[in-house]
């Protein structure tokens, strides 16, 4: 593995790109700035989102955004990709060709820190490993709104929202565990696992919440018939038929296995497919 070439930035470029100079530039170009896009080995996801961001749907030309074909015409460099070894010198050439002072925006997770490729042998992990970056736009790929927000933040139209947060006061107390419905949290655990299996982690969580609240509605969770009526009521209220069906399955399998001691299941205890009117 070869070492990263050390490039000594000429002093006149460093001096011409101080923060004061950049702020002055941003003040001058407020309503008209030309952007040159450098692809430093991106997967093209960020490119697609940038092109989505310059469609009439988002229309960044309202505040002066214009893509140009040469870095010599540009005020802002929009860099994507984890900076592969092959793109190292082309990026430096583009950077040097851009008139001073210039603003560099790193787009996407790869451009910010190297993203998923951060420890790969063939990348230098991030634009800021080679040239000074002013604005970082995270996202993989960033939503067009994120890109527009990044540009607007760089230009000073909007304020930055994220701040470094450090939490240090630990009292050692774990999060509170909810009171179990059926004396044991093993019921909750099984319902959670089954609902994740049925609907995936995202909708499974919602299904779990819906089913547990339905069982809690019952006056006596240990009584099968009372709980069945309570769950049926919730199922009828449910608009999404997927949740309704999965709640039926949860009741027939998990709930009955926890409440019944003997294995025979009477038909009156099961929720049948047509019973919930839909």
């Amino acid at each position: 593995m070869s070492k990263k070439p050390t490039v000594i930035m000429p002093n006149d470029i460093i001096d011409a790109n101080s923060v004061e100079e950049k702020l002055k530039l941003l003040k001058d170009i407020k309503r008209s700035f030309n952007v040159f896009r450098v692809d430093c080995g991106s997967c093209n996801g960020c490119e697609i989102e940038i092109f989505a961001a310059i469609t009439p749907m988002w229309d960044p030309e309202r505040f002066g955004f214009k893509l140009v074909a040469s870095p010599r015409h540009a005020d802002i460099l929009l860099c994507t990709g984890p900076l592969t070894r092959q793109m190292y010198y082309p990026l430096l050439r583009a950077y040097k060709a851009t008139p001073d002072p210039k603003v560099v925006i790193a787009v996407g997770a790869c451009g910010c820190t190297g993203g998923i490729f951060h420890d790969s042998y063939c990348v230098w992990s991030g634009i800021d490993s080679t040239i000074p970056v002013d604005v970082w736009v995270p996202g993989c790929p960033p939503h067009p709104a994120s890109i527009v927000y990044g540009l607007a933040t760089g230009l000073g139209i909007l304020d930055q929202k994220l701040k470094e947060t450090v939490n240090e006061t630990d009292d050692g107390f774990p999060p509170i565990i909810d009171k179990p419905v059926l004396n044991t949290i093993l019921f909750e655990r099984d319902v959670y696992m089954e609902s994740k299996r049925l609907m995936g982690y995202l909708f499974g969580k919602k299904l779990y919440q819906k089913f547990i609240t339905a069982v809690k509605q019952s006056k006596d969770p240990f009584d099968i018939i009372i709980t069945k009526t309570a769950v049926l009521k919730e199922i009828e209220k449910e608009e999404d038929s997927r949740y309704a069906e999965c709640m039926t399955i949860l009741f027939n399998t998990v709930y009955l296995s926890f409440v019944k001691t003997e294995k025979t299941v009477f038909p009156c205890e099961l929720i049948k497919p047509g019973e919930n009117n839909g």
Partner: protein
Amino acid sequence: MKLLDITKEIGTATYGYPFEPYEVPEGFRGKPEYTYDKCIGCAACAIACPPNAINVTYDKNEDKLKWEFDCGRCIFCGRCEEVCPTNAIELSQEYEMAVKFNKNDLLTKGYLNTVKCRICNKPFTTERLVNYTLERMKAAGMDINDQIIQNLHTCPECKKEKAVEKFVKTSRFGGVK
């Protein structure tokens, strides 16, 4: 003139975004929100995270477990949300994440107290995780005795050695008859 009529009918398609708020559709995977009070420091998210955006390390100077999230490296896959047992990390609808001039603004950190092994006296897990396990066991209807508490405060290496010792003592090839 016909074109003008059409545009009049359709209206403006452009979002007024930087000047007006824009709402992303439901289910959009935005910035992962970290709730420090719920975190137990089990490091499931750090193991699941594909680009190592979440790092859980032991901080020697502070004698604490350091949970660190770098938003700049996150690829918004939602694996951390999937594996988190306490819902401490959840993907929000936040898409306005750009920072300028200071990259450290992308970081979120959390420090958690550690517990030392009762046999070898080395830190091996967090105080919250031990307490959480105990609470869960109580809620599951288990009897908590000294043996269980001793086991909870023993690190995996010591547990392994203990098990081997026990096995050697009881097996017929062992020294004790």
